[in-house]
C-alpha cells in the first residue's frame, strides 16, 4: 500500500502552487516521460547507496540502449568503465521504491493545483504534461510543427529571425511544447540552417539535403545528417564557422544563465534560467559530439566533457524539485542543521545548496533555508536567525520580482514555527491568521477561476491514465 503524496507532506504554504507547477513541470520535461521516470527512479535508488568504511561503493546503471555506467555518490563520480581499484566495490543498483513515480507526483500536484491555484493556464499545461506521462510518449509533433513553420517563414523571407527564434524559445522551451533535449537539438538544427542559409527539404520535392519526414521529429539524427552532408560539400567552411559560433556562444551563455539562476530573486526565475542554461549546455554538447563523430575540426573554446558536465549539473538542479517538493517542510533545514552541528561554516553550507555544480536554490532562498534551520529548536543562534528571517521577508517584499509568493509563504511558515517555539502567542496568532487568510484567498480565487475555465479545461485535459498514486 502506498501513502498519498502531498506537497511538503500536507503542510500548506501560501504561494506554493505557482512555484511547484513551474518547478515540477520543468523537472518532468527535460527528458521524455520514459527516460524521466527511469532517471527519477535511479535518483531515488541512489539515495540508498551504502557507506562502507574503506570502500568506494559504486552502483552499476544498466540501460538497454547503451553500455553500463557506474555512479558513486560520495564523492560524486561517474564512469563509463567498470571501476576495478583495490577499494572499489561495484553493486547492482536496487529497484526504486515501489509506487513512487513522477507520474504520481504530477498527479498529486495537479489535484492540489485544481483546488488551490487560480493560474488556470498553468494548471492546464500541467494536465497536458501529466497526460503525456500517463501515455508514456511525448507529443513531439506540436513542437516540431512550430519549427517547421518558423523555418518556412524564414526561408521564404516572410519572417523576422529574431522574433521567430524568440517565439520558439517561449513556446517550445519555457511552455514545454517538447522535451528540453529534443527542443535543444531542434533549435540547433534550425539555427545552423538559418546561419548557413542551407535548408533541409522534406516531402515530395528533391533537393541537395533531403529528408523523408519532418526533420524536427528526430532532430538529433537530422542535425547529424545535415552536418555530414554539408561537411562533404563546397559549403564545408561555412558549416564549420557556424558550428563554432553556435557551440561557443551556447557554452558561454550557459554559464551566464546558471549564474543568473543562482542570483535570481525567485525560485520560479531560477527554474526558467536553469532550463535555458541546460538547453545551452546541451547544444554546446551536441555540437562538440557531432563534430567528434563526423571527424570535423571545429574550433571550439571548450571540451565536450565540460559541456557534458555543465549539462549534467544543471539538469540535476532542474530535477531537484521533484524530490524537494514532496519532503517534509523541515527536511532540508534539518539536513542543514546537521551540517552546521558537524562544524560546517556558512559559506560551505551555502555551497551545498547553491552552486553551479548543484544549482538547487537561489542564493537568497538558500539563506532562507539556513535561517530556517536555526529556528527548528532552541539554540544560541535562534534570535539572530529570527532577525534574518524578518530581514529576508522585507527584502522579498521589496523585490522587483512578482513571483516571490512561495518564498514569503515559506518565511511566514518558518516564523510561525519560531514564535511557537519561543512561546510568543501574539505573534503565533498573527502568522497563523496571515497564513490562513492567504490560503482562503488562494482557494477562493482558484474556485472562481476554475469554474470559469472548466469547459476549456475539460476539453484539453482528459483524465490522466495509469496513475500509480492517489492524490493529496
Amino acid at each position, binding site marked *: 500500500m502506498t501513502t498519498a503524496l502531498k506537497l511538503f507532506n500536507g503542510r500548506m504554504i501560501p504561494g506554493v502552487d505557482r512555484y511547484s507547477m513551474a518547478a515540477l513541470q520543468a523537472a518532468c520535461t527535460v527528458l521524455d516521460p520514459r527516460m524521466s521516470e527511469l532517471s527519477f527512479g535511479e535518483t531515488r535508488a541512489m539515495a540508498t547507496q551504502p557507506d562502507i568504511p574503506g570502500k568506494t561503493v559504486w552502483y552499476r546503471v544498466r540501460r538497454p540502449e547503451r553500455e553500463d555506467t557506474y555512479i558513486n555518490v560520495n564523492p560524486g563520480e*561517474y564512469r563509463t568503465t567498470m571501476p576495478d581499484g583495490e577499494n572499489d566495490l561495484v553493486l547492482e543498483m536496487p529497484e526504486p521504491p515501489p509506487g513512487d513515480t513522477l507520474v504520481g507526483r504530477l498527479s498529486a500536484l495537479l489535484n492540489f493545483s485544481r483546488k488551490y491555484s487560480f493560474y488556470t493556464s498553468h494548471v492546464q499545461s500541467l494536465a497536458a504534461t501529466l497526460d503525456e506521462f500517463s501515455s508514456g510518449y511525448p507529443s513531439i509533433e506540436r513542437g516540431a510543427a512550430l519549427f517547421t513553420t518558423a523555418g518556412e517563414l524564414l526561408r521564404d523571407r516572410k519572417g523576422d529571425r529574431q522574433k521567430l527564434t524568440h517565439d520558439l524559445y517561449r513556446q517550445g522551451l519555457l511552455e514545454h511544447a517538447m522535451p528540453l533535449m529534443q527542443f535543444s537539438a531542434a533549435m540547433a538544427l534550425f539555427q545552423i540552417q538559418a546561419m548557413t542559409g542551407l535548408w533541409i527539404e522534406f516531402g515530395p520535392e528533391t533537393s541537395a539535403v533531403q529528408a523523408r519526414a519532418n526533420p524536427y521529429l528526430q532532430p538529433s539524427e537530422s542535425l547529424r545528417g545535415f552536418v555530414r552532408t554539408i561537411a562533404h560539400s563546397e559549403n564545408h567552411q561555412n558549416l564549420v564557422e557556424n558550428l563554432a559560433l553556435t557551440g561557443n556562444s551556447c557554452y558561454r551563455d550557459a554559464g551566464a544563465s546558471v549564474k543568473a539562476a543562482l542570483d535570481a530573486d525567485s525560485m520560479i526565475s531560477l527554474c526558467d534560467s536553469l532550463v535555458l542554461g541546460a538547453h545551452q549546455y546541451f547544444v554546446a554538447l551536441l555540437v562538440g559530439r557531432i563534430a567528434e563523430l563526423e571527424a570535423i575540426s571545429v574550433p571550439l573554446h571548450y571540451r565536450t566533457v565540460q559541456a557534458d558536465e555543465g549539462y549534467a549539473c544543471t539538469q540535476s538542479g532542474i530535477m531537484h524539485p521533484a524530490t524537494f517538493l514532496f519532503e517534509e517542510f523541515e527536511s532540508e533545514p534539518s539536513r542543514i542543521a546537521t551540517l552546521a552541528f558537524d562544524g560546517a561554516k556558512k559559506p560551505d553550507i551555502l*555551497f551545498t545548496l547553491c552552486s553551479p555544480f548543484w544549482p538547487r536554490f537561489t542564493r537568497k532562498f538558500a539563506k532562507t533555508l539556513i535561517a530556517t534551520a536555526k529556528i527548528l529548536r532552541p539554540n544560541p543562534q535562534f534570535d539572530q536567525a529570527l532577525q534574518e528571517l524578518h530581514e529576508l521577508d522585507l527584502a522579498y517584499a521589496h523585490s522587483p520580482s512578482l513571483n516571490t509568493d512561495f518564498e514569503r509563504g515559506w518565511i511566514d511558515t518558518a516564523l510561525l514555527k519560531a514564535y511557537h517555539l519561543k512561546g510568543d502567542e501574539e505573534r503565533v496568532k498573527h502568522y497563523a491568521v496571515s497564513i490562513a487568510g492567504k490560503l482562503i484567498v488562494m482557494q477562493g480565487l482558484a474556485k472562481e477561476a476554475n469554474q470559469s475555465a472548466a469547459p476549456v479545461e475539460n476539453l484539453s485535459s482528459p483524465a490522466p491514465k495509469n496513475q500509480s498514486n492517489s492524490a493529496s
Partner: protein
Amino acid sequence: MDFSELRTAIRDEIGIDAHALYKDERYSIPPYLLDLLNDAIIVAFLTGFFGLDELGKAARNRIIQFMETFRKGPQLVTLNIGSDVDHALQLSNSPDPQGRQRGHDNLIRLLIDYGMSEEIAKAHAALIEESIVATLVAKKG
C-alpha cells in the same frame, strides 16, 4: 575581514570551467580544490600590483611555494594559504592602470595554465578582476 563573498563570486564565475583540468572523464571536484583555485586566482591578480614582501617573509614563501606547486597540478597542492590571501587582500590597495593590467595578464596566464582556452580565460578574467577590484574599493570606503 571575511572575503567569503568575493570567493563565492569567483567560484560562481568560474563555474563548470573548474573542470577544465579534466581531460576525458567526468569527476566531481571537491570543494577544497575550488578553494585552492580561488586562492591561486586572487594571488595571480594581486601580484600584478601588490608586493608579497608586505606580508612578511614566512607568508611570502608559503604563497610562492603554493603557486609553484599549483602550476604543476592541483593534486600536488597540500598547503592552505587562505588566511595569507585574506591578509594580502586586507593590505592591498586598489591598483593603478598599469598594475591592473599586469594583474589581468597574470590571471589569464594562470587560467590558461589550468586548462582553459584563451577565449574562456579572458572572459572569466574580466569579470573576476572586476569583483576583486570592487572588493578592494569597498574595503577602503
